[in-house]
């Protein structure tokens, strides 16, 4: 039993890292632009389906590079045409818009690729277990963790060591002042949105290798991402990462003792965090009111 619990904790970290990848993009957009992007799951599904379409031509590795970029490009267009006019207004408008977009995305995917799931294949070299004892540690999962680490590392490097990152961080704290100092916040928001959607596309390609690829793949993954952000704390990317890992582990451990509550436990955790520490584990004080 101890072994099963330990295995599930370890496994929960892997699953949690994946939640975190999706949540990070969401968190990035939320922090700077104040848009609660409900269409994030739609972008994720789009990234996955684009990869599925591209694999026969450019292979898995080519698709892994191209699909998130294409998704981000579409994200930039949508940001420019639909989301930009709503900046500065009531955040509910952005929420309603992206909420509608999520439905449109899901049905568009169904229209283009069909309601039934499609077979998404990853290279054979990734699909085997690395160890008979730790059978849940497959090549694909290790690879996924490596990508998550690289993506998170890259994101932190951009945010902390580049001019763009500095502006995004400054804008997250006080966009008005950043704007007054002569930074083109339109471009800043666009780039930030693009990076967030890139992360969604990347998470989509990775998810399709792990799960069945159907039009609902985004919808089923978006709620854990929101929970990760709330648990980790609004405004903190590190918190989002921590939130993702925590809900992954909590679900894993719950599966051992009370399997039918594996989903509910995420929301219970969210409720507890909101009661005890409303700003989230690493959230900034003052951001939450």
């Amino acid at each position: 039993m101890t072994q099963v619990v330990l295995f599930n904790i370890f496994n929960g970290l892997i699953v949690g890292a994946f939640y975190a990848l999706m949540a990070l993009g969401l968190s990035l957009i939320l922090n700077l632009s104040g848009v609660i992007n409900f269409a994030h799951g739609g972008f994720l599904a789009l990234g996955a389906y684009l990869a599925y379409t591209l694999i026969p031509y450019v292979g898995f590795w080519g698709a892994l590079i191209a699909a998130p970029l294409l998704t981000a490009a579409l994200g930039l267009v949508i940001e420019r045409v639909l989301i930009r006019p709503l900046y500065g207004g009531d955040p509910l408008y952005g929420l309603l818009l992206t909420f509608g977009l999520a439905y449109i995305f899901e049905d568009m995917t169904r229209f283009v690729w069909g309601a039934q799931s499609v077979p998404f294949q990853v290279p054979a070299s990734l699909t085997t277990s690395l160890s008979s004892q730790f059978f849940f540690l497959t090549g694909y999962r290790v690879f996924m963790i490596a990508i998550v680490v690289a993506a998170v590392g890259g994101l932190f490097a951009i945010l902390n060591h580049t001019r763009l990152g500095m502006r995004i961080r400054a804008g997250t704290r006080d966009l008005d002042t950043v704007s007054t100092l002569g930074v083109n916040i339109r471009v800043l928001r666009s780039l930030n949105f693009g990076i967030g959607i890139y992360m969604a596309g990347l998470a989509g390609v990775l998810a399709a290798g792990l799960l069945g690829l159907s039009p609902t793949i985004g919808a089923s993954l978006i709620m854990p991402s929101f929970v990760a952000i709330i648990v980790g704390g609004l405004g903190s990317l590190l918190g989002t990462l921590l939130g993702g890992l925590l809900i992954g582990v909590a679900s894993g451990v719950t599966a051992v003792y009370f399997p039918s509550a594996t989903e509910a436990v995420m929301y219970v955790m969210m409720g507890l965090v909101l009661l005890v520490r409303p700003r989230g584990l690493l959230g900034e004080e003052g951001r939450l009111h």
Partner: protein
Amino acid sequence: MPKSTSRGGVDRRSLVKSGLILAAAQVASPFVIRARAADAVRIGLDNPLTGTYAGPGKNELVGCQMALDAINAKGGILGRPVELVVEDSTSGDAGAAVQKARKLIESDKVDFLLGNVNSSLALAMAQVSNEKGVLHIVPGGHTDAITGSSCHWNVFRVCNTTQMEANAIAGSLIKDYGKKFYYITPDYSFGHTLEAGLVKAAGALGGEKVGGDLVPLGSVDFSSYLIKAQGMNPDVIIFLVQGDDMLNALKQAVQFGLQNKVHLAGAQQELEPLEGLPPEARVGTWVMEWYWNQPGVPHVAEFVEATKKRTGRVPTARTWFGYLSTWTCAHAAESAKSLKATDMARALQGFHLPPEIALGPNPVFYRAGQNQLIASLFVGDAQAKGSAPDDLFKVTKVVNGADVAGTVEQSGCKMTWPA
């Protein structure tokens, strides 16, 4: 920190509220209505077009449309044209399904109600159809109660009961792979009755349940359950989840290499998830309720061709469920020479369907006193590659439904008819 006006001030409350909105919006969903002719006979289909069961739901819809075209080409029902009114029931929201059923009956004035893929939704809809006295065909919701403890005079079911599926496969699994079963079961009425059915059928043959998990519908991650299952050292891991959940579970099990350590099986498999799996994950022993590759069985090849022409793919059991359900409406009305629900329901007691609709090796009929369709069950193994690109299942045994259906008394159905 001062609040920035241009950011719009998103806070935790907005985020939590938006989560609630997302949850509430599951109730609202798009719907489709066809143009109506004044004198048409109307069939209302209240089935999933979105969510986990959108795939099977859409295939049932294709079957309904194929039957509809054929019926209209033959002069309609009682000489009147037939229309299909389609509503999206969602995949898991009983409130939405019931609301749509009421809408179909009360404002669209349908003569027949069809649905639902989800057993819980089918049960909820059956209460409405019974209250309104409308003939109701359940194409593909399997839980026993529909034609068992909750049976109604007006509700007919096309797919098998979960107990029939369990009875069809339990013996083969125990004989070929061992007695210790671990269950991964979806946590709603279909899963509960399917597991209970298999535990009962296997128990009678010396089988033992060494453990099991009830998993929430729509689960994404199955790895934690698989780790637990492996830890219990079973002979067979039984997957009772369906749709996308089946896909996620099997894909992850095969990535873990579990198929090399224990046997993977289940009591119900469908072509839809097998088509969505990469070839290496098409493994395990299962029951199919209808299969397109039935050499020598009359009319099956024509049906396969007609479906391919319409959709580009072979029909699945779901296509056949939809097709047979819609044809049932036509036969009920023609036999009763009336659209009165009680007359049609009486005409269907023990009604045998003609071979061009039955599409199977054994007689296909609605059992009197229970309203359950009795057909064939196909036991076999999923395969990576078969005789054709869509041949993903190797049938090893065809079971006559009559042999595994038990008696009407055993089903628990006590039917009462309106005075």
